[in-house]
């Protein structure tokens, strides 16, 4: 019964939160309407979510967001310095292949998005079989260390969240 009302509890929470923020009013009325949407929309769309992702470790999401935000700030400063003070001739752009251990499409999407949002790296392409990611680096004298950092910092945590 509970499963029929809340086929997707995380989606219900997210939709309610999004509604509250869109309305930008934190009153019982908008909470009630948000909950209504949060319950009706997952119920109506449940048939289309055949392989919905399962989240194993919700606490890890908080840690992941904190790590990514910290990296974004640090990497922004690094890249700003490259843009402002480094001559184009000295710059070493590089393509790197990141072999993926993740297999769920949602986890790969989050990883690719994270790589693009952290400045200095940009995910450009996925292998046809879905087991590697092509990443472009703005300035990478040692491409291997960039690859290891992506695998260690992001992929390991995503693996704990999704798989």
């Amino acid at each position, binding site marked *: 019964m509970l499963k029929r009302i809340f086929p997707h509890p995380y989606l219900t929470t997210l939709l309610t939160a*999004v509604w509250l923020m869109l309305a930008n009013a934190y009153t019982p009325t908008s909470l009630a309407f948000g909950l209504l949407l949060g319950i009706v929309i997952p119920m109506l769309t449940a048939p289309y979510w055949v392989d919905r992702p399962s989240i194993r470790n919700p606490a890890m999401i908080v840690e992941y967001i904190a790590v990514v935000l910290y990296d974004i700030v640090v990497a*922004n400063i690094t890249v700003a310095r490259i843009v402002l003070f480094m001559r184009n001739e000295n710059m070493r*752009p590089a393509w790197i292949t990141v072999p993926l251990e993740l297999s769920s499409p949602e986890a790969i999407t989050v990883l690719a998005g994270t790589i693009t*949002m952290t400045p200095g790296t940009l995910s*450009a*392409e996925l292998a*046809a079989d879905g087991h*590697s990611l*092509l990443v*472009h680096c703005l300035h990478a004298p040692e491409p291997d260390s960039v690859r290891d950092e992506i695998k260690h910092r992001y992929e390991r945590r995503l693996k704990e969240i999704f798989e």
Partner: protein
Amino acid sequence: MELFWEIVISALMVIGGVFGLVGSYGLVKLPDPMTRLHAPTKATTVGVGSVLIASMLYFAVFRDDLSLHELMITLFLFLTAPITAHFIAKANMHRDWKAEDLPRPQGDGQWAIYEIDSDTSAEELDEAEEAES
């Protein structure tokens, strides 16, 4: 106390402006389309981010009003910016990069863009048409 918050909010807005400027300058200065793509991803993260934090602080401190609209803007930016960048990168690879110039993926396959048969949607459409007729 009000002065303190005014300074914090102004500082955040200046930081946002500086990063926006550096991002735009990077767009002009960097040498080729792939490196240029790195510039706009900066402007959207710290540049827009600190302006949004300044806005939230302003409404919380001076208007006594909780405003979380800004979090939605962050969410939508984080959803849309990587996808746009991904499409631009793909279009650029399609035009200017040969498969030989890029590192290979692990295993025997090729990057999706160079593997002509990797998009099966056309085939499926044909099959569906045949089934109908």
